[in-house]
């Protein structure tokens, strides 16, 4: 379980004992290690990085992932980028590249501090070569690539506290770190880990251990390694699991201080004065989650009118009623309200996070609804934001346009339902002006597609999960077709809400639907026959005569149990289904397929080959 981490304000002693605990957990894991790790991680650094392993390992264990590590020989960054398998003694799933300015460009730093005019240019040139090597690694390596932003240099002649540091070492570091972020941060499929920010968080002096540096070429204290390891673990874990979709919030003493039913709307604490400011900042954090696609809901024991009045009328509330995707404000047990919220939002209860200040409510929810992740609000208001910021539950590496718009799109959904209730179904469908774009996936779609592949639980025929790199490989293969589907109607855009992955037989006559998934929001308006009918048209154009597909039941995908027979597929035994393309459904009259047939080849999918600048 990924429960709330201890609050950041725990102090140095707490950080030290957390680091000791992490090392113990890792040692215990190694003593009982499963011979087949779930994940292989390769670390390459310009310094001795072995000491980082226990901390990344423990952070991944906390996310239920047992990893095995290989550390490339010290300071072989370029070799590792060009031939990762050689440096890591075999294949790895994740390659982490960490570097320090003072390891790669000590001459340039020294020159810059001595006033050499071209030192910065020389450093930029080295950085560009290094960025090109990382581009090369990305192009030639299938797994995940993580690159570290260089921290402030330590153990060199420049002095953080010298009077001219703003124009000295500080200036050098700021410029090079920014260039690195700008350059490497743009490489698609490379994730940055901001070691610079982490060093700042715990302090440059605390992060450096001069004794270890001189004796072992290992510059960092355990406090820094712990912080960096935890962040690396978070990044890797976020790429491997579905983020939570919705946070269900208590109201009194969670969103504001006090109890609205007793203290009244003017008596609750929210605004610029502490403790109201702590709740206000928490509300700002919630809005930033919403902007990443996390839905916000409220489950509160209150009179509905009292609680909603706060959202509607209290001028200091950052969170307004329009930001809420659902609410259950009544006197029923919250464990009964939670499934209603999940149902209203068309998501599973296991993608909910429940946040409440009452330990009894938390305990009751954990007991009654173990699949819901329950988080207790700290009793110290000053700790609320730090505690919530430390939650890894909503981590996701690629925030797509659909994510940013999701909460607003849910509002459009409510408007659609209102119209549907007023007129007949056939009139409704015609009035909808449904437009469906079924298209060959382009490079910019792969992030969103990977997200759907890994998050769609309900309308998903086979529930095969894939990493971004695996999806990209299929997109680039001539034996596979990767389709995306965008749906638009008169109320707005649903965004990229459907994915089909097809494998083509060597004789090109059979298309096997390896994966097919859709967001439940778009079902039941003629989208399903449009998808299969449109796909069949493309397949026929490319010489195919038959579809194969399978339905693999899970605990959650019963909703698509009748999809294949509904689209004229016939069972051929077991979980396998067949469709003669002559029998494929027609695209319904009220639907417009945008763009027409998708071509057999897409030039745009060729990966960009990096050119090494040497």
């Amino acid at each position, binding site marked *: 379980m990924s429960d709330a981490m201890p609050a950041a304000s725990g102090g140095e002693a707490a950080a030290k004992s957390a680091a000791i605990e992490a090392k113990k957990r890792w040692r215990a894991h190694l003593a009982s290690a499963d011979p087949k790790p779930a994940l292989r991680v390769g670390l390459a650094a310009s310094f001795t990085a072995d000491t980082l392993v226990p901390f990344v390992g423990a952070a991944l264990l906390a996310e239920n992932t047992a990893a095995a590590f290989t550390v490339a020989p010290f300071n072989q960054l370029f070799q590792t980028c060009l031939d990762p398998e050689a440096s890591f003694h075999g294949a790895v799933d994740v390659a982490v590249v960490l570097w320090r300015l003072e390891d790669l460009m000590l001459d340039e730093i020294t020159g810059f501090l001595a006033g050499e005019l071209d030192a910065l240019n020389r450093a930029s040139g080295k950085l560009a070569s290094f960025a090109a090597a990382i581009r090369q690694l990305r192009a030639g390596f299938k797994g995940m690539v993580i690159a570290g932003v260089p921290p402030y240099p330590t153990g060199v002649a420049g002095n953080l506290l010298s009077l001219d540091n703003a124009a000295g070492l500080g200036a050098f570091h700021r410029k090079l770190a920014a260039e690195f972020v700008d350059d490497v941060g743009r490489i698609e499929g490379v994730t940055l880990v901001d070691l610079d920010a982490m060093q700042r968080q715990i302090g440059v002096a605390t992060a450096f251990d001069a004794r270890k540096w001189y004796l*072992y070429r290992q510059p960092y204290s355990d406090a820094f390694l712990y912080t960096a390891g935890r962040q690396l673990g978070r990044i890797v874990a976020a790429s491997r699991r579905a983020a939570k979709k919705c946070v269900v919030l208590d109201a009194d003493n969670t969103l504001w201080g006090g109890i609205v039913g007793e203290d009244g709307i003017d008596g609750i604490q929210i605004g610029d004065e502490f403790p109201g400011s702590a709740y206000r900042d928490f509300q700002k954090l919630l809005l930033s989650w919403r902007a990443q696609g996390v839905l916000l809901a409220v489950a509160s024991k209150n009179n509905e009118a009292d609680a909603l009045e706060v959202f509607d009328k209290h001028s200091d509330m950052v969170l307004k009623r329009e930001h809420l995707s659902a609410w259950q404000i009544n006197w029923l047990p919250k464990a009964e309200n939670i499934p209603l919220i999940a149902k209203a939002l068309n998501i599973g209860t296991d993608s909910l996070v429940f946040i409440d200040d009452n330990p009894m409510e938390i305990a009751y929810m954990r007991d009654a609804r173990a699949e819901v992740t329950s988080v207790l609000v700290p009793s110290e208001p000053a700790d609320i934001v730090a505690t919530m910021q430390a939650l890894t539950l909503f981590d996701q590496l690629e925030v797509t346009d659909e994510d940013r718009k999701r909460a607003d799109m849910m509002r459009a959904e409510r408007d659609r339902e209102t119209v549907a209730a007023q007129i007949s179904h056939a009139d409704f469908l015609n009035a909808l002006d449904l437009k469906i774009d079924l298209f060959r996936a382009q490079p910019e779609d792969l992030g969103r597609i990977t997200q759907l592949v890994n998050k769609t639980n309900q309308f998903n025929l086979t529930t095969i999960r894939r990493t971004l790199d695996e999806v990209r490989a299929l997109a680039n293969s001539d034996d596979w077709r990767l389709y995306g589907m965008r749906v638009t109607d008169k109320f707005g855009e649903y965004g990229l809400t459907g994915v089909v992955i097809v494998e083509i037989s060597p004789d090109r006559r059979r298309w096997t639907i390896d994966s097919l998934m859709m967001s439940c929001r778009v079902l039941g308006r003629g989208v399903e026959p449009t998808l299969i009918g449109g796909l069949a048209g493309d397949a026929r154009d490319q010489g195919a005569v038959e579809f194969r597909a399978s339905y693999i039941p899970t605990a959650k995908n019963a909703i698509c149990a009748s999809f294949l027979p509904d689209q004229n597929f016939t069972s051929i035994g077991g979980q396998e289904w067949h469709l003669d393309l002559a029998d494929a459904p027609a695209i319904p009259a009220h639907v417009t397929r945008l763009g027409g047939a998708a071509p057999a080849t897409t030039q745009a999918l060729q990966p960009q080959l990096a050119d090494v600048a040497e």
Partner: protein
Amino acid sequence: MTARVARVFSEVLGVSAEQITDDTSPDNTPQWDSMAAMNLVVAIEDEFDVTLSTAEIISMRNVAIVKKVLTAKGVADA
């Protein structure tokens, strides 16, 4: 302290506590490589709440010397 020292060495080196004697050193314990040496320093500092100087770290070439250093730093029960 002897038991605590043995436990720290046993955990870091991955050998049983009984195998840790005053004579245990990098020369007779292959697990005590340079990486383990660094981990031992951190583990000893954590366990006994002391800070070791580079001179002390360099001097600690077997378990007996480690105990001597710790005693000199005021760790009780040598």
